[in-house]
């Protein structure tokens, strides 16, 4: 079986989840990403990414408590799994090794 892949947007979301350890949920991820990338992001895209990644085993989820906010709906918090972290590390290695292979080009 092929190892599960990690798309670009998924990678961004996974990074955010990792960064906001145990406090990451849909809206927080959206806001953080919007700040970082400086563009608006559809919350549906984040939900889809989160669903797929949890199916692949990159993230785990737990529900928060019921509060008066959010129309009485619980928050769903995500944490990165060990497998997810491994995936991020590999991705990072590949990218940096590729990056270091770039010869010194001057665009002066």
């Amino acid at each position, binding site marked *: 079986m092929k190892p599960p892949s990690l798309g670009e947007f998924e990678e961004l979301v996974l990074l955010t989840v990792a960064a906001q350890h145990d406090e990451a949920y849909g*809206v927080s991820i959206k806001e953080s990403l919007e700040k970082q990338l400086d563009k608006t992001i559809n*919350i549906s895209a984040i939900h889809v990414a989160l*669903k797929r990644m949890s199916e692949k085993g990159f993230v785990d989820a737990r529900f928060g408590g019921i509060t008066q906010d959010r129309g009485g709906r619980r928050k769903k918090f995500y944490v990165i799994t060990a497998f997810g972290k491994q995936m991020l590390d590999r991705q990072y290695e590949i990218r940096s090794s590729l990056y270091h292979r770039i010869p010194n080009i001057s665009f002066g």
Partner: protein
Amino acid sequence: MKELPPKYALRFLRWFCREDFIDEIEGDLIEVFEHQYKETPRGANWTFIWQVLLHFRPDFIKSFRDHPLIYPGMLKHNLLITYRGFMRHKSSFLINLLGLSTGLACVFIIYLWVADELSIDKFHKNDRQLYQVMQNRKIPQGIITRTLTPTPLTPALTEEIPEVAAAISISADEERPRGILSTDGKEIVTDGIYTTKNYFEAFSYDLRHGKPEQVLADKNNIVLSQALALKLFPSTTDIIGKSIEWRDRVFQVSGIFSGPPPNSTKQFDFVLNMDVMLERDEYAGMWNGDYAETYVILKEGTDVDQFNEQIGPFLKSKDPGRDRSTLFVQQYSKRYLHARFENGVQAGGRIAYVRLFSLTAFFILLIACINFMNLSTALATRKMKEIGVKKAMGAQRKSLVFQFLSEAVLMSLLSLIIALGWVALVLPQFNLLTDKSLHLNINAEHILIVLGVVISTGLIAGSYPALYLSKFKPVAVLKGVRATSSGEQWLRKGLVVFQFALSVIFIVGVLVVNRQMDYIQTKNIGFNRDHVISFERARFSGDPDVFLSELRNTPGVISVANMWNSILGGGGGQSGYSWRGEVADEDFRFKSPLISYNVVETLGMDVLAGRGFSKEHGDDDSKIVINEAALKLMAIENPIGEKIKYGDDQREIIGVIGDFHYGSIHHLVEPLIFRFARPRARNIMVRIQEGTEKSTLAKMEALYTEFHPPYPFEYTFLDEDYQQLHVAESRVATLSKYFTGLAILISCLGLLGLAAFTAEQRTKEIGIRKILGASVFGIVRLLSADFTKMVILAILLALPISYFMTKNWLAGFAYKIDLEWWYFVAAASVTFFIAWFTVGLQTLKAARVNPATSLRDE
């Protein structure tokens, strides 16, 4: 105050979203919404809706497989129950199946016919803007509406009226180019049209070769239909520019078109430039004659009423002599169904039949649906236990409704299969009857419509049983108590009454329509139309007198007459006569056909005084023959030898003939003057010896082809032509017979089912009554009393309605039958006896059962 996101979007989200995601998604959405709401409330609403829609994707949609209504196990169970129900109650199943399938078949056939009628002349791409210019002309009797207009109208309208994008003339039917087209060695008899250069741009006839704007550019151009081209040339490739001769004139083929489709009212095989007609007939280009049909393409957004006002006095402004004519336009594709004008006002036409048959189809299907409803509710007692148990086990009303509705839809789908079989079987006959070429073709539109009709039939038929049956209270039902509300009884009875009222109306309709048709066919129309052959002689260069006298000398021929108009056409009218008498009205318009010698004798008209035109007396156009109605109008004492004036000319009356029907029987007999025509008149009528038709016709054909090579001898019988005049009505008569038969059949099927059911329900009662000494007849009477009352009520309701409907229909005929009381009595008794027979058989069967059998159990 807390701001709430759009209600419907939220409800939608909750409806489709998976349980395990709804918290996350709804919560996040609301959070985002609240954030945004502080800045732009409207924007927040829209974002929310948009985001809900973005979540509507397979990832988050719940699995409807687990939905209780569509759960496969349940569906299977429902199917099984339905199947068992069908098997157990075979008779009501068959009744339903037969009724519904017949109803559906009627609807499909009528749908095909109606769709075909509606499609006529609609295929032109300019359809919405394409109008025909019509002419209203004032005559003393009122206003007559004509389709013909002068040829100079086309260029004048194009130049002077800005709303006209294009105008087209097409030669009047009498002026069409006919005759022989010849190429090297080949001669084909055919007919075509003259038209203006822009014809193929305005009308969408498929041009295979040639460009629409060029094919008629030159007056020596000719455009051929594919079929005609193949007759004249070996193939249609490379024939552009080839020569064709017609009436000593050479034309060059400039285009080939695929021929008018069957749903075009204009049928023709070749097209010539209008200028050819103008050259051939010096009067054709004048304002005072009507030689053409004029069509206009109006610019988008033109107000038609305003346009009509604008062109109303157009003719008068061109030719002061035409001050009685006003012009108006009618959409071309509406002409076919809305062709009748009364006194200058649109008065229906074939559309009446389209409506009539659509209604019929609807009612027949309704009757079948009513059967289904009645039988299903009647059978409810048998289903009570099932429903009770299901409800006790926790079945929701919803799922019961679903079960019964799906049963009904399944029933109608089964009927569909049988109905399609019916249609396939009947369609060839139907085509013969209606002179159409309808066929079941499978295209998306048809499938959609058929499925739509079938499923809505199922839903309508199933709705009442479904709602009614699912309403039962489980406790009451399981105890065996069934509260039959009087409302339900009323409804069932009401439906039966409705069905039978419709049947009575149908029967009265059929009776009246068919009596009227018989009356028309057999009415003495003032001349003898039997054994008369009629044909139109082709033009030829020789002396027609020779041909006519040869024809007269043919054995088997009794007499020969010729005239310009057709004796059945009703055409031709003239005003400007004045006479010495009590009234003299120069404006009065007489019917004035042009006839030659022997017409009165050949057609066996009554001669009241004097004689008809004859060669021996050397009659010429200074003589006239009038009919009785004209004599009455002129109020002249001794008409023979009397001279009446036409302009400055004197015309001598040499004969008076009895009134006869000139044209269809829809019109009253009008005052008529026979004018004299030279023997050249080409409409020939031949009375032949009865019984010698075959040999005489063979001789006539030989003679004809000798004089008119290469024209084929094409003749008709006058009595058949007369029938053809009233073909629309006789079709209605025949079709109405069939449809009425079906309506009655379906009604009776329903009644049969109900009667069987009642009898079965009262088996025990009947048994006990018999033991106590009731006679068979007494029981039959008891059981059928209810039905008898219903049918009588239906009859009472239906008679006045049918009276008004038939009276209305007859009003369209100038000569009609009286509505006699016995039509209604006959319809009522036929319905009554059929119903009683149906019920009686069932009850008799029930009443004759040995009480020991019916009381054995328990």
